[in-house]
């Protein structure tokens, strides 16, 4: 049994764009901990990645559609996570969120590392799965003794 989530926590509304493996798992986590979460994806079938316990909203729609962003209440969001696999989409949605909806915290995924500069210049926090994986692999390789039962964490929790 989970007790009532605290008022402070529940007032933070998170919007996630892109219901891939990463987006879905983060949405599940937030929903499980009692937070408000909405996930948007173009493809209706993408939502099957969400766990059946997911209690937030899932909306079908194009994130580049300004009306859609208004409809899902982007102006009320405290956090925006843009995790589609297309850099152009990620960049544009993140910029819209910062400039038009003045969302406080915008985190975007960068697929192509060369484009990271475009994101950062606009005051958007980014992460790049390739760099993170590279770092981790580097760590593993540089370790003196290979530890047998150490597992690379690809679930995405470290990325948050």
């Amino acid at each position: 049994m989970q007790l009532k989530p605290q008022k402070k926590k529940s007032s933070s509304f998170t919007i996630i764009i892109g219901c891939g493996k990463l987006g879905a798992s983060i949405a599940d986590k937030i929903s499980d901990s009692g937070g408000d979460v909405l996930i948007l994806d173009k493809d209706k079938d993408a939502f099957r990645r969400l766990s059946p316990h997911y209690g937030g909203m899932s909306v079908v729609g194009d994130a580049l559609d300004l009306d859609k962003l208004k409809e899902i209440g982007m102006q009320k969001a405290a956090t925006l996570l843009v995790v589609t696999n297309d850099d152009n989409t990620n960049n544009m949605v993140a910029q819209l969120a910062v400039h038009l909806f003045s969302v406080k915290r915008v985190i975007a995924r960068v697929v192509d590392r060369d484009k990271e500069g475009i994101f950062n210049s606009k005051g958007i926090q980014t992460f790049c799965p390739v760099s993170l994986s590279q770092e981790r692999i580097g760590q593993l390789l540089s370790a003196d003794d290979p530890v047998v039962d150490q597992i690379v964490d690809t679930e995405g929790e470290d990325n948050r």
Partner: protein
Amino acid sequence: MEYSISKISSVGKFMMLIGILVAIPLLVIPFGMQDHRFASSFIVPASFSLLCGFLLFLYGRRRSSTVENFGWKSSMQHSSIIVLFAWVWGMLVGAFPFFSSGQLRLVQSLFESISGWTTTGLSVMDTSTTPRIFLFHRSFMQFCGGLGFVMMMNMFIQEKQSMRLYHAEGHSDKLLPNLRKTTQLIFLMYGGLLVAGILLYHIVGMNIFESLLHAMCALSTGGFSTRLGSIGEYNSLGIELVTIILMLFGTTNFAVLFLIFRMRLRQVVRVSEVQLLLGLLCIGIPVFAFGLQRSPQFMGMESFKLATFNVISALSTTGYSTIDFRGMAPSSLGVIIIMMLIGGGIGSTAGGMKLERVYIGIKVIALNFRTRINPVRSIHPGFFYKAQGKHMIDDKLILETTAHILCYLSIIGVGTILLAATANANLLDALFEFASAFGTVGLSIGITNANLGNAALLVEMFAMVLGRLEIFIVFIAIHSSIELMQSRLQKIGNKGFKK
């Protein structure tokens, strides 16, 4: 992927919730003169349910320290079993007060309780002599039954499997990005409408007690009345108007209701369900009225007034009536039966096949026609509007909807014959009464009364449960309990064999 579920402790929680709900009619005692004699028949089942629930809850918590993990399939099966169990338990506990106080026979009290929780409103009680506390108990059961146990539970606590249970009980909508807030919002709207309903009833001249009871039952599309002649006995235009408004609100999908409250009226009009509702009323009311005109006592405007009230009552699956259906023209009865079959909005408190499914059904017929007259390679996508926006009618949806409609109609066919046989009635009357029970409506053509035999009551009880829980979940739950039982037995058998 694994899903954890704490089955026993959540069953315990449901039992505690039901215990509390059954204890609530005790609040009427300070206002009633002679009702305190019946206090014990409420205290006993309530405390029994609370105690059992609490013990199970403790037992389940201790066990759940070793969290049980099930695969997807059995997680779904467990949630349907939990939902069905909660409802059956509620029905048993709810029946106890009627029985233990000697108001009704055993089967009759079960019938009354089921009719309450499922928001049907068929009654075997003589309301003119029944003490007030029982009248309140009935109406309160309908009020809670309209929301559903899972919905009430989610208001207080949210846990991992609440979403599954929420779906299993047939709620389809999420209004806010958080399940607990969604249920709280629904309860807030429901409660607000209740208060408004009580005030309106009181203004048009009902006493406070009766306005409370009628508002609860109209809003949950239940239909228990404190009078034998239902709403018709008041013979007041004001009361009928208030009832119509409450019934329409009750039959509206919660998501649409939320749009109405936010004054997004243009979006509301676009929703397919709302369009179908209005369309059906436009056709149904005149047909019903013309059927009435055959007899001389209902002429002109009078027949339209009666038609408006009773057709809305049938379509919203409420079951308040201002007219006696016995000996009515077949065309009028036909309209009422069709309305009862179609029923109210999906994800509301209403029963029946639900407007959305019927709308999709009509669309599918149109699409099928279009594919037949057009070249083979042309595509014809179908759409419909929900409160959340435009939805495409894809193959999966078509399959689910047609399966549901077919299942509904076949049960109607079988049930009608069963009821006709057990109640010794003619086929039209049996169809009317069965459709009324199955759609959780509660209009009666006179078959259901205090003298009805047990077999017919059982048929109607089964219909009401199936109708409220949307058919499939009952079958899934029964199927899964048999399957689980078999696997348990097999395990025990294997162990015995090894020894």
